[in-house]
């Protein structure tokens, strides 16, 4: 039973991690390889802000989320937009190198000591006959549900969500219809980094904040790809598939295989069904 519960919790963490990734890919067709470093940096930032602002953690979390939104806008404006028209290769390398700059920042500013984000809810509860669940894990599941409900409804019903979907589907046509694609793409970078910050805070609260977080966060690539890089809804089943495979490998084989199995799944998906579970099939240019 506790195995089940841990699948659900890990699945929720993965789906949140993958969300930030997919939002950005969907609108700007950029795979954000700086993702893992961002997770580490943003969770260190959370700890600093929490020390700086006394009072309930909700306040400082709000500040971090707003900061990360603007960080997303800045990254888009100063690094991604000037690269428009360059090859995919260059843009990937750009995000990779942004990532190593973020890594260096988190080492130089925060010294990469192991710390924990405390959300101020330390209790443990027994659910479903014996499985233990901590307060943080309940927050994780709730956040995942609320976040996905919000973002899916946002994409479906709000005007900006429509514009985002339109520019994701066909940038030229969207621009022709008067959508300001620069601000829409910038906004999705903001939302993407915002989602990254949510995942970073929760990951930091559930385990610990250290550069090792990157090893967990990098599995978001696998989750996003299995679900389909341009599909928000696809992340949810994909996250649970990856979580199940990983925990099974951890329980029955060894932890080293558990680290590698998301990538094995990813390779299989790339060869068999590159557009993922729910992605658009025309997405991939074929030769």
């Amino acid at each position, binding site marked *: 039973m506790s195995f089940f519960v841990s699948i659900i919790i890990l699945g929720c963490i993965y789906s949140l991690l993958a969300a930030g990734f997919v939002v950005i890919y969907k609108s700007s067709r950029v795979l954000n390889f700086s993702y893992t470093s961002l997770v580490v940096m943003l969770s260190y930032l959370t700890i600093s802000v929490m020390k700086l602002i006394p009072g309930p953690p909700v306040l400082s979390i709000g500040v971090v989320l707003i900061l990360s939104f603007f960080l997303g806008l800045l990254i888009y404006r100063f690094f991604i937009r000037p690269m428009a028209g360059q090859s995919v290769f260059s843009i990937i390398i750009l995000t990779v*190198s942004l990532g190593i700059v973020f890594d260096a920042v988190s080492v130089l500013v925060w010294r990469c000591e192991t710390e924990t984000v405390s959300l101020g809810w330390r209790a443990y509860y027994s659910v479903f006959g014996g499985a233990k669940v901590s307060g943080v894990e309940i927050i994780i599941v709730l956040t995942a549900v609320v976040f996905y409900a919000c973002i899916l409804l946002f994409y479906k019903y709000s005007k900006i969500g429509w514009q985002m979907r339109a520019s994701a589907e066909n940038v030229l046509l969207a621009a022709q219809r008067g959508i300001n694609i620069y601000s829409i793409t910038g906004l999705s970078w903001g939302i993407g980094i915002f989602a990254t910050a949510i995942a970073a805070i929760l990951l930091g609260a559930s385990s610990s904040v250290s550069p090792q977080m990157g090893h967990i966060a990098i599995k978001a690539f696998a989750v996003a790809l299995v679900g389909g890089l341009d599909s928000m809804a696809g992340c949810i089943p994909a996250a649970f598939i990856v979580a199940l495979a990983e925990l099974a490998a951890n329980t029955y084989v060894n932890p080293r295989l558990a680290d590698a199995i998301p990538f094995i799944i990813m390779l299989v998906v790339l060869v068999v069904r590159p557009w993922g579970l729910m992605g658009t099939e025309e997405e991939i240019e074929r030769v």
Partner: protein
Amino acid sequence: MNMTARPAPRSPYLKASYTKDMVIEAFNTPFRKKWTFVGICFLISVPFLFSNYIIHIANLIAIASISALALNMLSGNAGLLSLGHAGFMAAGAFTTAILTVRFGIPIWIVIPLSAIVGAVLGFIAGLPSLRLKGMYLGLSTLALHYVIIYALSEYQFYGGFGFGIPIKDPHIGPLLLSGERTWYYVLCILVFLVALFIKNLLRSRVGRAWIAIHNRDIAAEIIGVNIGYYKILAFAVSTSITSFAGSIYAFYTNVATVDEYSFSMTISYLAMIIVGGLGSIVGSLMGAFLITALPFVMIYLVEFFEITGAIKDYFFAVQTGLFGVVIIFFLLAEPLGLAEIWRRIRVYFELWPFRYKPLSITKR
């Protein structure tokens, strides 16, 4: 009036025939021949001029050059993104370690076998490239990197090699390959051979096919290039050279350990080819030189100016962060890299008293 028809003036930068395209530029004029000769003399005299430490750095640069040449051929010329470079190097290094330590096979057989293992892995990595492009290909090679590293760490763990597999200095006939100075000459020859091999590939049918695929794959298919074959060939050739470099690296450092071949190694190789210039052989060499030498220069500077505090304590972070800044700078300001700057300087002096603009390379 007898006006002999003069041919229309042509730019020396337009290559109108295959014979012109196939000229190796380093040797084609007396001026260049002279300077190439001077350069070779300098390279030969390096061990007599500098300390062991400098020669050790030069050897690392040479190994990095071999590997960067392979990556640049794959990513710069054939346009296939690989994020699994460190994984392929690790495969070469571990094949070497396992064959040498466990089976005692001589270096003559070990190195080709490592290259073959690399080629097989490259074939596997190339298979998704038949269906995928760009980002997706990057992801699949990244996944392959983690799978390779997983397999090797299993071996290292169960073999009981906590800190890596130690390898003895290899013998080539009566010659014992040990010490920086012996290695220096061997590595110089190897870099030259690999560069020549890649240059020959690039200036023949295979290279032209790769460039055609890079520029417009559909057009390449229409003019009769077998895309699947050439893509897989690019992967297999590049990864076998990469594995070869990994094998040499394992012999040179006398150890093969998984921890060394992390993703950050891939990043530093990508930095080399971007800073040097995508698709350029001189670029790979310059990039390998700059990126490999940069940390050593920084160590020297830190000691020279007696810098203490955070910069010294977290030196590794400063160094990788600087890599990032350098790559971003080059991508935003000079996407064609050092090779393009070098070309511009050369052209400026060639045309010196005149000011007409030569044909510029279009940005990709």
